[in-house]
């Protein structure tokens, strides 16, 4: 009997977590693609915030170029934050989250797949459109690699940390504002190193150090955030 059980467990381990990761990733991407309005929301928000700077501050190219690294990063950060609330909301409302928490599979895997799906449609999409939008702010061409690389490494951390806030507030009726208050302070290190990387790229300084620091933050987030997200989800559902 004991033999039988361990064999069964071993078989499950083989088809288990990897398959679940892919299944969840596919499911979440599919869900987002079928809800097209939410798909383009972060991108349009990003574009509109950037449009406000020439209108509101000054249309002068030299001044905008100076402003560009910070403005682009702040706008990307806010766009990510905007889409964060929806990450677990629908799963909570329709009961999928309960089923997810009752799965014998590790919660870490599902959570990581969900955050990856979220990042691919927010952070990754923002990274890809950022150069086009950066031109609007007269960001010099030398700054583009720095902008794209820093966003590529930095935005996954934003998604991971934001997901902790989303998991903590999913049980509340209006969690959106609370997420911002919880999560924005934690975004500050990513913002600092991200903008520094772009500025370094613009002035021709090496940006390896900043990217390494962003990478370290991402590694830390990848290892620890899914555990925090899982625990937060259990608390939210238990409440």
């Amino acid at each position, binding site marked *: 009997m004991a033999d039988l059980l361990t064999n069964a467990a071993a078989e499950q381990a083989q088809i288990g977590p990897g398959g679940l990761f892919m299944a969840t990733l596919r*499911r979440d991407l599919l869900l987002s693609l079928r809800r097209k309005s939410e798909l383009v929301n972060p991108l349009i928000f990003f574009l509109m915030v950037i449009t406000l700077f020439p209108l509101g501050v000054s249309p002068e190219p030299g001044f905008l170029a100076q402003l560009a690294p910070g403005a682009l990063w702040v706008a990307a950060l806010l766009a990510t934050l905007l889409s964060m609330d929806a990450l677990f909301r629908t799963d909570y409302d329709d009961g999928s989250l309960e089923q997810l928490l009752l799965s014998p599979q590790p919660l870490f895997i599902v959570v990581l797949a969900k955050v990856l799906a979220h990042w691919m449609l927010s952070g990754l999409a923002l990274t890809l459109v950022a150069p086009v939008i950066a031109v609007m702010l007269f960001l010099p061409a030398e700054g583009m690699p720095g902008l794209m690389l820093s966003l590529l490494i930095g935005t996954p951390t934003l998604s991971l940390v934001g997901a902790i806030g989303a998991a903590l507030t999913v049980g509340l009726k209006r969690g959106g504002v609370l997420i911002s208050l919880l999560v924005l302070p934690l975004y500050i290190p990513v913002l600092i190193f991200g903008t520094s990387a772009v500025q370094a790229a613009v002035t021709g300084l090496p940006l390896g150090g900043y990217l390494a620091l962003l990478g370290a933050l991402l590694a830390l987030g990848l290892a620890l955030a899914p555990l925090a997200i899982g625990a937060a989800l259990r608390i939210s*559902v238990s*409440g």
Partner: protein
Amino acid sequence: MSGPMLQVENLFCERDDRVLFDGLGFSVDAGEIVQIEGANGSGKTTLLRILSGLSRNYEGEIYWRGEPIERVRDQFRRELLYFGHQPGVKALLTPEENLRWYCALHPALDASRVSEALEQVGLRGFEDVPCHSLSAGQHRRVSLARLYLSDAPLWILDEPFTAIDKRGVAAKEALIGRHIARGGSVILTTHQDLQGSSAVRAINLDRQGGT
């Protein structure tokens, strides 16, 4: 197998300063149906959520096959099928996509039986229709199809017959009967009387707490 499958001792739960139950104790044996009864708001759903491990908002002991449930959490989850108040069906996905994801969550389930299970609940021909264009009853049937897929010994069902038509209810009762005959157990809440099932034991929450 000796001893009860699930044993509950001295369970206490309060919600918003109102005691739902206090000193509640019962056990569920293999091949037994336990029906939780009580008025609306008496804590039926809360009790089922506690038993399934979703809610930690309680005091008291719960044992699964003689072991404290906290220590055998993974094994318990593998042997549990929970049908909640919300059916856990994504409106934007088709019935088949919904069930396939459920199979990924529970690796013991055989994903190749999904279409068979959908046929059993009368959703043949609706496999590729997004669930938001199904009726309320069909929506719940998607979730009930999990009962046909599952080999889990313990079923916890919260109002499984809501919005299901008469023939559907009869089919589900027959299914529960087969599950019992296989040596499984069912804990459920329903406002309907179960017909044709002999071994139904009722636990009434109205007499618990009440303050």
